[in-house]
């Protein structure tokens, strides 16, 4: 079963995170190629969010009459480049790693959602775009292709960052990650949302819940 190793792996305090495999379609993947190409052309470290090469970037919203019963994928082109996406995966899994039966944020496609969000043409999302992308760019060098201990230190330092931009990035990214995670079926299970099922009647709260409320009322003098 196991493949023979050519060399013995160096001992590591923590395993390298696996590369994030985007939950995307081919059209989006091709768009990334275009953007990376453009970035390379202007030089390392410069990220270009312009139109992808050889095609036009879609920048319109879903319109005022989208199909609701089977929503189509958001039409706008995704703008995050692989380094940003990989960084987003590491950070999302720092916030919500797998735990027991609860999956990790990245396995639920949270990085793709962050990409969908920052790529969207609407005012709220356009406001978040530089906050998230600049934050990911600043973080990527500290978490990609570095020793595990260095990565862990960089992540742990985020919430306590001194500069306002990093703090704003942390807060917004965490907000988006939590929202994206708990709006999924796996998130429902983790948080204890048991609704969205058809019922023949609404029985109201259980005796257990009512008893808990009565206990609370006692403490509140109600």
């Amino acid at each position, binding site marked *: 079963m196991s493949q023979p190793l050519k060399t013995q792996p160096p001992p590591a305090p923590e395993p390298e995170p696996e590369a994030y495999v985007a939950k995307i379609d081919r059209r989006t993947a091709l768009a990334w190629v275009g953007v990376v190409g453009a970035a390379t052309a202007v030089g390392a470290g410069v990220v270009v969010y312009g139109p992808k090469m050889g095609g036009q970037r879609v920048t319109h919203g879903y*319109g005022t009459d989208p199909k*609701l019963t089977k929503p189509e994928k*958001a039409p706008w082109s995704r703008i995050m480049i692989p380094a940003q996406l990989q960084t987003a995966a590491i950070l999302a899994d720092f916030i919500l790693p797998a735990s027991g039966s609860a999956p990790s944020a990245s396995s639920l496609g949270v990085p793709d959602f962050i990409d969908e969000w920052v790529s969207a043409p*609407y005012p709220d999302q356009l406001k978040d775009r530089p906050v998230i992308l600049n934050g990911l760019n600043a973080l990527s060098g500290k978490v990609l292709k570095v020793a595990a201990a260095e990565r862990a230190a960089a992540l742990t330092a985020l919430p306590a960052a001194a500069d306002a931009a990093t703090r704003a990035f942390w807060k917004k990214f965490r907000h988006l990650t939590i929202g994206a995670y708990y709006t999924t079926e796996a998130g429902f299970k*983790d948080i204890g949302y*048991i*609704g969205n099922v058809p019922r023949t009647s609404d029985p109201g709260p259980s005796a257990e819940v009512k008893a808990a409320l009565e206990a609370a009322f006692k403490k509140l003098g*109600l």
Partner: protein
Amino acid sequence: MASQSYDAIIVGSGAGGGMSAYHLAKSGLKVLMLEAGRNYDPRVETPMFNINADAPLRGVGTPDKPFGFYDATVDGGWQVPNEPYTVAEGSEPFTWWRPRMLGGRTNHWGRIALRFGPLDFKPRSRDGLGYDWPITYDELAPWYDRTEKLIGVSGAYPPQNLLNTPDSPPGCLMEAAPPRAFEIFYGRAFKAMGIPVIPMHGAVVSGKMEGRNTCLFATPCGRGCAIGANFQSTTVLLPPAMATGNLTIRTNALVYQVDLDKAGKATGVSFVDRKTGEHHSVTAKSVVLAAGSGETARILLNSKSSKFPDGLCNTHGMVGRYLMDSVGLGVSGQFPALEGLPPTNDDGQGTQHTYIPWWGYEKQKELGFPRGYHIEIGGGRHMPSMGMAGLLRDDEASVGDDLRAKLRNKFGSTIGFDGRGEMIPNDDCYCELDPKVKDKWGIPVLRFHWKWGESETNQAAHMVKTFLAVIDRLGGKPLGHVETDGKKAISKGGEMIHEIGTARMGHNDTDSVVNQFGQSWAVPNLFVMDGAVMVSSPDKNPTLSILALAWRSADNLVTLARQGAL
């Protein structure tokens, strides 16, 4: 369409238009309904049970879909493409929610179905402010009864005999859904403060009802209902009206003018097809405007002739006047006492199961504002949305299992308190035609003027005070910044989407546009059957009253038609 001879053209298909069409068609009149929006079928278009993860941006509101991706509204919101409106310079903000779909706003409305009370029809007699209606509660009451039995309203409870908060007679309402944990919770605090808590009247089929499906106690009403278990014009009124064979519906027909003959009678209306841009005129023995208070006023104002140079029925400058909305604002709180409750299905029946009717009728003088408000309260373990991180303290930074545990513990521990209050009509709130701006088809658009009075801003301040007191009594903490200055905390004009007035009913042609049956004083075969006819803006949400008034007015129209008086 041209080959048909119609007894009535109805402009609009929402609460007023839908009810008018239902009664006229059932009574044997031939009816043509013109709807500005597209055809819409809730049975196949409603995203029942869809989760936010399946929607773009997890379903959050955007300028394309301001109330969220799954909100039923089609082609609309605070702005409608190609159909602008303006707000006058110097005016306070005003905003106007319009859909472009069959059934109008009944598709996404909050299903809160409260009757106006006896005092609401005679406010001037009560305190000298505002204006009295030409009808009493007792005159409308039988139509409320019929309306509740037709559309399906939950919230039956033993008579409470609360002042100006009518109990429906036995047989009108279905049983109330039981209070959920958060409703039991806040109820105890209000009761301790001497404030009554009673079942909400919700336009939801909560029990068994002939010919209707019962609520599934799941999936939000604002998306519409594929099984027709709540009230929408498109599921409850239009299908039976169509089944009579007497109703023809034309969609994408944006009516801009009532046409008159030389004698001054209405011959029909002119409209532009929103898809082709072609203009058409259709004729009928009578015309019913039910396009929504704003659009109804716009049609009248755009119907200019030598007899009516300032717009139809506007000889006394009454059209567009007395525009009102509800006073509104909300404060949310987080409650440690609700943390860690066992998982419960709190989806409920869509509307709140209980609410707080206005309790201060006899204390208005000492309170410092003349009219009251009711409180709509939301909470419970609702389907998670993008706002989940809002459960956590602002300075909170946990990750991993710690974060999971905190969220699990706090899920369902927030409650939002929303006030909806009465506004007194004032001279600064009205709409007129913008002298310059036109829509895509060259038709002049509305320009709004708005200014809240002290009656409203003082009331708003009292709402905040009450909500903070209740939150405190329940051991909670308010969420986010809470504005206590009523002038700043109060909603924008129009924001509560209860805009009414603009063609009010009254006693004669100098104090009003229409009579108590919505029949215009100036043109005897022209009727208004939407919220435009309302004289006051009670705290109770207007939809149920629009339905009851439209039914009463449509019944009068049938009588006139049978008398050959059209």
